[in-house]
């Protein structure tokens, strides 16, 4: 076996210099190729946030009205809270955030019912609202969704304007201390100049979150590839509840989609639960909505998260909800 020559100082320094040069070249190349701005789609020129539309003067209130006629029950539910005039004043510019997620007929109860959208529009205008805008971001073919759900026709006949989302309708938003809502596209255009926000949501089973109620309804204000959030559905609903502070929510439990939500499809998925809920506390509304699905607030982690953060109460009975019935 031959003995290798020992490394002398000259060789060592030469090798060290070469190794150092390799490191510098590799590091320099990395630095040169590093895109500090990130992908172009995420370049943020302007971020937006939604105003707080809640009315501190009203405090947390809820009404529960049973009956099969949405027009009658929503009128009675709002009257029990002091009337729509308590929430909508002359000159208000009202946004109604409906659920128009699917191009599905109203009979399948996968979306906000057009009769309810029309009646709330009429009530707002009668209370003096300067305008009512009905909006949602259904992602897939918004014109078909608004048309086939019957929402467009009913809302426009009642005097509302439909705001269909376009790419320019979205601006990035960031929620403070959020895990998920960071630089995320928010449907903001319909809110320009808006002074009041009412959420109109149906009660539905949901494959991922267990339930689709008023807080989940804000999901339709997100743009982008929002399906990534389904991996952490309870957190995104909770963050949406922090992001969106409505004037009022109306939860339509006239017909509840008990199974196979959120799309449903069969009339067998539906049950007549004949209840209309109006509330200034979305957490309480959702906690009651859970009972229509045969669940409790404890079964739906997003309710617990929202309640723990002080966004409302999961103990809806503590609000002494005003109960009534209309034939």
């Amino acid at each position, binding site marked *: 076996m031959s003995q290798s020559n020992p490394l002398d100082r000259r060789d*060592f320094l030469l090798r060290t210099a070469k190794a150092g040069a390799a490191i510098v070249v590799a590091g320099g190349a990395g630095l040169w190729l590093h895109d500090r701005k990130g992908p172009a789609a995420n370049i943020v020129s302007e971020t937006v946030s939604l105003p707080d539309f809640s009315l501190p003067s009203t405090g947390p209130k809820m009404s529960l009205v049973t009956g099969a006629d949405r027009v009658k029950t929503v009128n009675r539910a709002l009257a029990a809270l002091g009337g729509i005039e308590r929430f909508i004043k002359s000159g208000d510019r009202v946004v109604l955030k409906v659920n128009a997620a699917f191009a599905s007929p109203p009979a399948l109860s996968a979306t906000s019912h057009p009769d309810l959208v029309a009646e709330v529009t009429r009530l707002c205008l009668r209370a003096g609202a300067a305008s009512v805008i009905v909006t949602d971001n259904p992602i*897939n073919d918004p014109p078909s969704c608004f048309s086939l759900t019957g929402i467009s026709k009913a809302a426009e006949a009642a005097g509302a304007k439909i705001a269909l989302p376009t790419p320019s309708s979205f601006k990035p938003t960031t929620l403070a201390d959020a895990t998920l809502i*960071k630089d995320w596209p928010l449907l903001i255009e319909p809110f320009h100049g808006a002074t009041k926000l009412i959420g109109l949501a149906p009660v539905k089973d*949901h*494959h*991922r979150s267990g339930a689709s109620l008023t807080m989940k309804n804000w999901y339709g204000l997100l743009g982008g590839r929002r399906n990534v959030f389904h991996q952490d559905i309870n957190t995104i609903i909770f963050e949406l509840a922090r992001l969106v502070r409505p004037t009022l929510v109306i939860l339509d439990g006239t017909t509840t989609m008990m199974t*196979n939500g959120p*799309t449903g499809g*069969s009339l067998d998925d539906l049950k007549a639960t004949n209840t209309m809920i109006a509330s200034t506390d979305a957490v309480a509304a959702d906690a009651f909505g859970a009972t229509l699905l045969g669940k409790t607030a404890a079964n739906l982690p997003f309710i617990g998260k929202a309640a723990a953060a002080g966004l409302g109460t999961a103990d809806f009975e503590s609000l002494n909800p005003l109960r009534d019935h209309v034939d």
Partner: protein
Amino acid sequence: MSQSSIERGRTERWVGFIILLCLAGIAAGVYHKQFSFNPAVLVATAATPAAPGTTKPAPSSQNESLPTLPPELSALSAPETFTADNLYDKVDGKADLYLTAGFVGLQCQRLALKATSDVWMEWFVYDMGTLPQAFSVFSLQRRAEAQTLDLTPFAYQTQNSLYFVSGRYYVEAVTAMPTEPMMAAMLAMARQFVAAHPPGAAEIPELKLFPPENLEAGSQGLQVADAFGFDQFTNVFTAKYRLPNSATNAEVLAFLELTKTSTAAAALCDAYRSFLLANGGKEIEAGAAASLGKPINFMDNIEIVFAESNMVAGVHAVPDAASAAKVAQQLADSLRKGKP
């Protein structure tokens, strides 16, 4: 050793130390960065485990799975095609149900009756890649009050819609206006579809392993991921039993999963027992089915799990112990006779 060798060794140690320090810094940077990804950039894709003995097939070509329309129907909209990347656009929160079952593609179209164009339906063809995967999504959404159809072995109708599996396809047809002409047209289209896409070998052998006594017709199902909240349970076949003479008129869910070897089955059985016990389950005294191991009381319901040959089987979330033991024993006997 010479002085120069000692100095050289010391220098080399320092250089080596500095290089290691740089590498550690890079590793720390990578570790830190993974916790602050931008969700707008990183799009999570659902895992798509395959049903037994399958590989991912190619999607059907555009419109291949939409049949020729019956004469009484006309197109109300253009056909739409969705892939795993955008299925969510169409079905929102239900996309995961299909994606986790091996979804390949969706083609759908709205169709109207020519005579009364305001009466329309939507036709959905989910290409699930294989028969078991199509059966999985069919079974997970089956409506309790459904009426069985003679279209294929897996087909039913509700008052306004019909659902069936034909080979690799899971098909839904839904209308909000279930008039007689519309329901008839829907069924005619379904028959055309089955003729155009014959189901082929439409049997799922695992379903025959469930004993027939007290089995609820049409109650069999397949969960291809995270069955019963246990992430090691994949491709779990289930069937419901109703014991009319039991104290509680109990409904019992029996299950089984095939593994590659008896050793794997035993290990999976042990893992599920450990999962139950680690999450608050308590072993209780064995009753009638003592040979299958101690039942576990888990959240006030009874679980029995056992390994038989290369299969893991048992009963899940049964309200009373006697019913659980009875069905578990029936299942064990059936598996012994009908080993796959």
